[in-house]
């Protein structure tokens, strides 16, 4: 199969959906000739024109709000928010308007819109351009939230999001834009709400999202050399969450570590842990469920500090080793 980058995959999804459906259009800051801050929309204005690839003023509330208004009247807008940190500036339109319109109007409105936004650290952009704010939006009934980790899913999930009749926030990861992977040339979508088991294993389940998926896969490779068999789950959809896949895996392995970049306190790692311990998987646990998350600090500028602020491959390896060690202790204690 041909390989393309994550950014190219996003671009293909946008182009294909615009060709397929005249109601789909893009709006955002510098998404026209500039191609967006990360070059994702490069070339689209040439094919689709300024009416469908709209360069807007620097107005996040107006961008998201215009998407809400256009969606409720029958268009299928795809807004780009240049950095996910800027979602906070337009949050009223997403949280109080888009998410609630259908419910508070008694189910008599549809808001089929997408907000795509680059998230995450690792580029030296510091505290206001590096956050992972997905948990904020996962907490809001009425929104769907996805975070693709591969070029295949970046394309398939975005296409599914554009066809969805609800507001969907797509968190793309800046560090993934240049990664390459197999992407079919034929039409496909990736259903929202379905996790993917990226690597099967027996000993420990690693539940990861976004850039933590490739890191977890590399960690799993190293763990295999030590005789630890790690199963890696890529959640892909954060809301709705594919709890079944997570629970089934933990029932099998008896150990779990959740890995995400967003900081730990009140983060969605807690949600995953809760999902596990409230389920039948509780009876299969051989060790505490761990959360491996960003440190509770704003993302710092210095590259050594920045790296230390979020989980790295070594941390995932160490967390899995710890789970194996601690579960052995449990077994010894049980025998005594």
């Amino acid at each position, binding site marked *: 199969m041909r390989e393309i980058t994550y950014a190219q995959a996003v671009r293909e999804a946008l182009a294909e959906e615009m060709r397929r459906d005249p*109601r789909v*259009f893009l709006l955002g800051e510098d998404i026209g000739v500039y191609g967006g801050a990360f070059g994702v929309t490069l070339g689209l204005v040439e094919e689709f024109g300024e*009416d469908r690839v*709209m360069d*807007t*003023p620097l*107005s*996040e*509330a*107006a961008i*998201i*709000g*215009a*998407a*809400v*208004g*256009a*969606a*409720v*009247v*029958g*268009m299928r*807008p795809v807004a780009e928010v240049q950095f996910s940190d800027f979602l906070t500036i337009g949050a*009223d*339109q997403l949280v*109080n*308007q888009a998410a609630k*319109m*259908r*419910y*508070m*109007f*008694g*189910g*008599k*409105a*549809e*808001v*089929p819109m997408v907000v795509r936004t680059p998230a995450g650290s690792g580029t030296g952009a510091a505290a206001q351009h590096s956050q992972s704010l997905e948990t904020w939006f996962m907490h809001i*009934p*009425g929104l*769907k939230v996805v975070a693709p980790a591969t070029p295949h899913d970046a394309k398939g999930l975005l296409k599914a999001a554009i066809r*969805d*009749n*609800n507001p969907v926030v797509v968190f793309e990861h800046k560090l993934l834009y240049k990664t390459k992977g197999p992407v079919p040339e034929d039409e496909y979508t990736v259903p929202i709400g379905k996790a993917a088991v990226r690597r099967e294993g027996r000993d420990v389940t690693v539940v990861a999202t976004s850039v933590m998926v490739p890191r977890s896969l590399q960690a799993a490779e190293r763990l295999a050399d030590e005789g630890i068999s790690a199963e890696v789950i890529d959640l892909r959809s954060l809301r709705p969450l594919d709890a079944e896949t997570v629970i089934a895996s933990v029932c099998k392995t008896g150990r779990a570590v959740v890995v995400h970049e967003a900081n730990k306190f009140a983060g969605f790692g807690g949600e995953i842990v809760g999902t596990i311990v409230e389920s039948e998987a509780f009876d299969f646990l051989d060790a505490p469920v761990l959360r491996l998350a960003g440190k509770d600090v704003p993302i710092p500028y210095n590259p050594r500090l920045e790296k230390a602020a979020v989980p790295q491959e070594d941390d995932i390896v160490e967390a899995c080793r710890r789970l194996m060690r601690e579960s052995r202790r449990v077994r010894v204690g049980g025998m005594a």
Partner: protein
Amino acid sequence: MKEQDWQAKARQLGLGPERLLHMYRQMRRIRHFEEEVDKLFQAGRIWGTFHLYIGEEASAVGAIEALAPDDYITSTHRGHGHGIAKGASIPKMMAELRGKETGYCRGRGGSMHIADVAAGNLGANGIVGGGIPIATGAALACKKLGLGRVVMCFFGDGALAQGSFHEAVNFASVFRLPVVYVCENNQYAMSMPVEKGLGNPDIEARARAYGLPGVSVDGNDVLAVYEAARKAVDRARAGEGPTLIETRTYRWRGHSKSDANRYRTREEIEEWKARCPIRRLEERLIAAGILSPAEAERIGEDIKAEIQAAIEFAEEQPEPDVAQLADGVYA
């Protein structure tokens, strides 16, 4: 304005006796609806909160009269008047205020979220200024879909201080969208008077800053409101872009049910009551021979009966089923 001038103005605007009477009736329906809502609340039959439109009726009715039936509006927390003027069913509104399953929002929205998307009301809004970007986006869609429709966006003077106003109006100006912004200046953002809350209360200057026409009218003169709205709607429909209108008016009642009116005087309220928009229109219509006092009374009786029937309808409607609590979160 002299009586002859007023009649000439109405004719010039294409408002014959029938439409003038329709506007009069709509204003009275709003007034009576609001008075009954207040009573129902006092009687403990309406829950939560609401914001009464009494005193501002000419603003909604004059502005919405300039729209075609399939044009859109966005409304505010003080939205009952806009809904009625846009043609809402009073029984369904009343049922919503009672939280009933057959209300506009199946009892999930209440006063601050009454909407009828299919009929062009994109919703009241609990967030001050929250509807301004939405109206702007709806206008964008109207333009893209070639619908030839216009969006009328209502908000209060308080919303002029919100960032959403600035972002959305600039956005609409940049893309020349078919939207009419109607700022209903009722003199207070809750308790904050406009002269204290706005660095520059001059709406025309404000509009100029965004590169669009701005006009301030007497919001208690339904004809003046209609005239300004008509011009703005025509301009929007012709593809010439947005307009900002200020309707200067006054809310007679408190901001919401919790308001003790500590920030204004009884004299001020009485002064504005003397400028009652409904009485003004009624006097004009009687002087013009379009309406007789007896007919005015009959209209009042009809409206009373209509709203009484709506109250009874709402009373009999079923409550939502708790088992359906989560219905409608997602499409």
